């Protein structure tokens, strides 16, 4: 009797050991979210969707800058994400074995411009962009007005929106730095955050501008992104223009150069929100970061965009950098049923009344989908500015050609050399060399 009992007990032990390993998740739609700033909203959306349809949506958000890592370990699991994100053509290349062809789905057909989708070698649609974003220099017009009201200022223009090129920007910024005590600011630009993982505003976004002009001049390709994707090597012809704006940021910054290596993007956004600085380079997604800062002094009507002027000829007509690096893909290896359920969820999100309300008012997305009318645009001031720039026919939008940058390693290496340049351990020529050599070695 005793023997049987202990035998039973040990069997129970072993069985629990094994069942613990094969635990099944009940969610059939699993969305691995890329945007940490929208994590809470997606949770809410998932709850709402479950209330309306009874389908459970599991939302997991990867921490900032760890999406690729998270995806890599999640997708190997038996309950892998059914909806995940790729960041453009390069991202698609590394995940193409996991992307489902969604050419004939309602969701893919929502795109108002089919050419925006990522197509595979068989011309099928494998990833669909879901948000259009823009970035430039965000400025606080209240501080700018204060500056332009000064009688002893050294510049002749009378409002921030008259800044149309690098020369004017530089003159204004440097004069503002000289008078920062009168303006009540600690610096013109927020910290040029260069701590690890926080340098994407410079090694990706700012670098987009000089390389866009280089690829645009390509004789072989009309589309600068495609020219970039096919470029085995780059000349980095506009490196001095890149340096112009980067130096302007660090020379007129709130922080000393030596400590930039420990600053993060949220540090810079907080400095801007608290009114300590007048300008910061970032995109319209940053609105949530600005408005949620405790003690925020920036009024909604005062927050405006300037294009990234670097001193390139003809930049008076340059607009914001507008594009997308956010594409949804459906996991090819998921069951047919959950693939369909995932597509249904996305369809609901971007076509139903409730879903669209979340998209425009909570996620603050400008979408590329035809299910949204022109009135259904986010109400946040930065998104409105992006729309204003998009609709201004006199300006030329700079597309996001950085989706053609060869790899993440390219970006981190460039970021690392920027940090060493700022700290004075390297010359700008070394940064220039790094950009060129890393492009060549990473593009195989």
């Amino acid at each position, binding site marked *: 009797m005793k023997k049987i009992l*202990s*035998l039973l007990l*040990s069997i129970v*032990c*072993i069985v629990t*050991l094994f069942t613990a*390993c094969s635990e099944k998740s009940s969610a059939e739609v699993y969305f691995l979210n890329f945007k940490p700033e929208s994590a809470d909203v997606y949770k809410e959306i998932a709850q709402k969707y479950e209330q309306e349809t009874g389908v459970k949506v599991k939302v997991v958000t990867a921490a900032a800058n760890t999406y*690729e*890592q998270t995806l*890599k*370990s999640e*997708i*190997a699991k038996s309950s892998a994400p059914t909806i995940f994100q790729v960041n453009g053509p390069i991202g698609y*290349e*590394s*995940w193409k*074995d996991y992307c489902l062809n969604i050419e004939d789905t309602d969701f893919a057909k929502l795109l108002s411009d089919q050419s925006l989708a990522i197509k595979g070698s068989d011309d099928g649609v494998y990833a669909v962009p879901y948000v259009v974003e823009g970035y430039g220099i965000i400025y606080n017009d209240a501080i700018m007005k204060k500056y332009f009201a000064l009688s002893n200022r050294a510049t002749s223009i009378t409002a921030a929106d008259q800044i149309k090129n690098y020369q004017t920007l530089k003159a204004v910024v440097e004069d503002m730095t000289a008078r920062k005590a009168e303006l009540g600011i600690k610096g013109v630009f927020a910290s040029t955050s*260069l*701590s*690890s*993982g926080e340098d994407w505003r410079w090694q990706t976004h700012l670098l987009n501008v000089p390389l866009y002009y280089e690829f645009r001049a390509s004789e072989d390709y009309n589309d600068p992104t495609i020219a970039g994707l096919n470029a085995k090597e780059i000349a980095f012809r506009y490196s001095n223009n890149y340096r112009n704006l980067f130096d302007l940021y660090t020379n007129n910054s709130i922080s*000393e*150069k*030596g*400590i*930039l*290596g*420990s600053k993060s993007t949220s540090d810079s956004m907080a400095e801007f929100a608290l009114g300590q600085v007048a300008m910061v380079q970032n995109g319209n997604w940053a609105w949530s970061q600005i408005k949620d800062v405790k003690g925020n002094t920036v009024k909604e009507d005062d927050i405006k965009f300037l294009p990234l002027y670097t001193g390139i000829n003809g930049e008076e007509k340059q607009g914001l950098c507008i594009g997308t690096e956010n594409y949804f893909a459906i996991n090819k290896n998921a069951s047919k049923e959950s693939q369909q359920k995932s597509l249904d969820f996305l369809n609901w999100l971007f076509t139903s009344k409730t879903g669209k309300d979340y998209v425009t008012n909570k996620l603050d997305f400008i979408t590329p989908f035809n299910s949204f009318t022109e009135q259904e645009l986010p109400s946040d001031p930065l998104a409105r500015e992006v729309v204003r720039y998009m609709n201004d026919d006199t300006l030329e939008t700079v597309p996001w050609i950085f989706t053609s940058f060869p*790899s*993440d*390693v390219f970006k*981190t*290496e460039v970021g*690392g*050399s920027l*940090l*060493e340049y700022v*700290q004075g*351990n390297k010359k700008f020529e070394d940064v220039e060399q790094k950009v060129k050599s890393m492009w060549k070695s990473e593009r195989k």
Partner: protein
Amino acid sequence: MKYASKRWFIIFVVPTFAAFAIAFLIPFLSGLYLSFCEFRTVSDAKFVGLKNYLSAFSDNGDFLNALWFTVKFSFAAVIVINVIAFLLAVLLTRGIRGTNLFRTVFFMPNLIGGIVLGYIWQLIINGVLYNYGYSITSSATFGYWGLVILSSWQMIGYMMIIYIAGIQNIPTAILEAARVDGASPFRTLRSIVIPSVMPSITICLFLTITNSFKLFDQNLALTAGAPSKQTQMLALDIYNTFYGRVGYEGVGQAKAVVFFVLVAIVALLQLYLTRRREVEN
């Protein structure tokens, strides 16, 4: 009796062995296999032979740089930790007032996780360096000493406890005999205390060497390798190769295997060398 124990053997060993296999043996062997494969996620591996090992060493200098930095770090950390821990142990076995309080205080940092410690020390070090217009990423030297200070702070307490246990184990008769014979405190330390705590020294050296080589969270939280990977240690380099670089998963895995072999060799060598000097009481 023999018959019974054979039957019970299965019942008692199987659960433990299964746990060991699932949590250690199987991952280890599949990791070994994966180091010879090209793969994106661990479930879609394709065999490619020794290619990964070749590119681990030849692709860029990262791995060798990280190795050299790790060796430099371990060298300093092992000496600093063990010397200070031993001195503290000697001090705290003299029966001075508040001995227990001090032992607790010195041991406490060990109870805090590496990531948290990393961020705490990053704040402290930056707080000091900011005054001079620097931060911890300004130069690799700052990061290097930052890491040494951080890991000393964390590990000294633990090693101190081991040394204290060793010193307390020395028979008082021998110490008394030495005193009667008129041996100076330094002489006692050199000829009696140190030889008697050789087993503790073996353990402490083993722990500090392997821990210094394997250091990861502290490195990630304190500098994350900045500036330009100059303060990147082996474990962090492996992590970055595996996760940060598409198509290099296998190379990361190969680096991990090389790393394992290296740590094993260093640890075994050290065990062999210090064991020889141990004396029986």
